[in-house]
């Protein structure tokens, strides 16, 4: 299946390149309202038509994917670092420390995250720019989304601590930070990378859920979530296949990430 992974990588690269070149490819800025053309169909000026306020759909899609593709990996990195700290310490220390830390992890996993996110979003200062709001949203996702990875990393660390080479290292006098740096962390690298790549599509979808509820990225900045919000109105969905493009793009991006991940998971 090497060819499939290559195609997936190519698609992701193309999408990323198109988003970076949004300023050149899109006929207008994502916030510009063509008020004489609200909800217009495809035309030479607007290849994907306009939304209900007259904003160019292509521009909003390109900028929306850019937001998701840039910030989801950052949120995933934050979540992986937090998971590595909590899971790594729990697995390394073992005993009552591990039990206490896993209790905290279970507590985090049992929290209804959507309500927590809604509450935290509502408590944020109102006067922050859309760019800051989107950064805060993804940072929140990162800070709340580490628990599942922490369990995996804890289990990986625990197994490593029981492995022969760690016993031998200990017998040779290695302990503490030196043991962690030279023997544990290098062997956890693949697990951490796998957790990072798993988190990226999860956070893209989570932002999409928040955006569809109207609680994601602030206007006028688009994101995949806010673009998907249009699909909520069952009755008003006119026979406009272009309205489904953001959903199609989201499925393609997440699928490509999953295909790329398969090999990494097999390796781990």
């Amino acid at each position, binding site marked *: 299946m090497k060819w499939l992974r290559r195609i997936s990588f190519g698609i992701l690269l193309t999408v990323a390149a198109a988003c970076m070149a949004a300023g050149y490819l899109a006929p207008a800025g994502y*916030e510009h*309202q063509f*008020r004489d053309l*609200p909800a217009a169909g495809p035309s030479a000026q607007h290849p994907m038509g306009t939304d*209900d*306020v*007259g904003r160019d759909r292509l521009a909003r899609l390109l900028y929306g994917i850019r937001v998701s593709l840039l910030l989801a990996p950052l949120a995933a990195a934050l979540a992986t670092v937090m998971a590595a700290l909590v899971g790594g310490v729990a697995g390394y220390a073992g005993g009552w420390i591990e039990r206490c830390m896993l209790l905290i992890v279970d507590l985090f996993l049992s929290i209804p995250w959507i309500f927590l996110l*809604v*509450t935290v*979003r*509502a408590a944020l200062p*109102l*006067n*922050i*720019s*859309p760019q800051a*709001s989107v950064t805060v949203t993804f940072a929140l996702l990162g800070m709340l989304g580490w628990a599942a990875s922490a369990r995996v990393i804890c289990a990986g660390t625990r197994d490593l601590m029981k492995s022969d080479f760690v016993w031998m290292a200990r017998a040779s006098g290695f302990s503490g930070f030196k043991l962690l740096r030279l023997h544990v962390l290098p062997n956890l690298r693949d697990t951490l990378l796998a957790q990072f790549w798993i988190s990226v599509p999860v956070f893209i979808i989570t932002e999409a859920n928040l955006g569809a*509820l*109207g*609680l994601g990225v*602030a*206007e*006028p900045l688009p994101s995949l979530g806010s673009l998907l919000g249009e699909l*909520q*109105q*069952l*009755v*008003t969905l*006119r026979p406009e296949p272009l309205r489904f493009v953001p959903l199609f793009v989201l499925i393609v991006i997440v699928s490509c990430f999953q295909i790329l991940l398969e090999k990494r998971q097999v390796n781990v």
Partner: protein
Amino acid sequence: MRRWWPWILLLAGLQLQAQPGGELRFCIHSYPRTFNPLLVEDEASETVRYLTGGVLVRMDRITQKLQPELATEWKVSADGKRIRFKLRTGVRYSDGTPFSAADVVYTMQQLMDPALHSATGDAFRSGEGAVSAQALSPALVEISFPAAVANLASLFDTVAIISSKSPQREMAVLGPFYIAERKAGSYILLKRNSNYWKKDANGRPLPYLGAVRLEVEQNREIEALRLQRGEIHLINAVVPAVYDKLSRSDPALVRDAGVSADTEQVWFNQMPGAPIPAYKLAWFTSTNFRRAVSEAINREDMARIAFHGHARPAVGVTSPANRFWFNGKLNHHPYDPDSALRRLKQDGFHMENGGLRDKSGNEVEFSIITNAGNSARETMAAMIQQDLKKIGIHVNVVTIDLPSLLERVSSKFNYEACLLGWINADLDPNLQMNVWLSSADNHQWNPKQSSPSTSWEAEIDRRMKDQASSSDERKRKQAWDRVQQIVWEQEPFIFLVNKDALVGISPAVKNAQPSFLRPQTFWNVEELEVK
């Protein structure tokens, strides 16, 4: 064979009598919180009260005039403190108990009991002292109030008369239907009240319908789909996007009943102790700033785009749909960004690097909060953001869940500007006392003032008290016209649009006459028939 046909005709006749008019079905969006008509506060309970309760007078939703119901005549005293009703005789409750003046007295006693905490009763509280009701004869009743009550007779439109003698208590009703069956959270089945007193012009007993089925359905998209499938017959409020869709696919299903009394508005937080910077409070308390923001918003575009053309630019607090109380001398604020900039200049604002700055050099930037999930409001906020950008004002749009928004606006006062709407269920301005008095809780821009903080708010207080204490409609209209004028000049609320009343009515329903007043589609339920 010939011997059979009279029997067939008789059976057909009995069948027609057994199910007069068929069953009307529509959705309510929650299960009623109460079936006690005196405790109604939510929309679903109000629907049940309207369909089952018998009232002394009823507002005709088309002519906007009071019509006699259980009272055949009424007279308000010159001082506005007393009202006398002459009652219809020979009327019986759904369980057969006779109706008399004693029931009106009992209803008023229950309604005004402080222990009951009735929102309907609050409208009658005009001053210190008790409300007394006296049966002068079995068909004559007089109700006295400690102080004059404005719009007194109309208030009885919402008072369902309960029985003082029936063992069924409030479940014995005088309205066209009674509650026959109900399943919490699912449905309520109302059946025709065979004791209902009203007849049509041909002497045929009303209502024509045999039953009304209210089905609980929260999702308005599914409600619209059910109307399309013919599972329900009515929708009281259709959102513009759905209206457009249905008007293309099934034009017979939807009707535009014209501009409504509902408003959409934005306002600035002017509360002195609010957690916002002092320089922003200075902007928000400036009339020039508020007028400039108002003039920079393109209301025509908003009505055309956010409401698909089913709205009108708002003039002020009272909609032109409210024929008597609307101040016809006023027009909506025109879209004029140049005039807006001139007004801002008068307050020392100036443009710098494409952005507006105040006289101290602060960049003019504020946030507007609105409730998440309301697509029309989200569109309006995006349009305001774009319009104000043209005069150099940077707006941050924040959509938050409704409970958080209400907490910010009503208790924490932690917001800068808010975009929300009002549903004006009543035409009379007296019911807006809790908004316009500077001491009121709902005086949103600066609530609970110990004394009016501006001279124009002091004048609004005076005029509102004048209209509330007078029974002379002409004087009340003059006072309310002046309040509208002040609000138009000062713009504590920047009124944006009045939405049209868009309704869904199945072609199977006969005699429907939709109105912008609630309940829009079934206000004449007695005359409705289902084919």
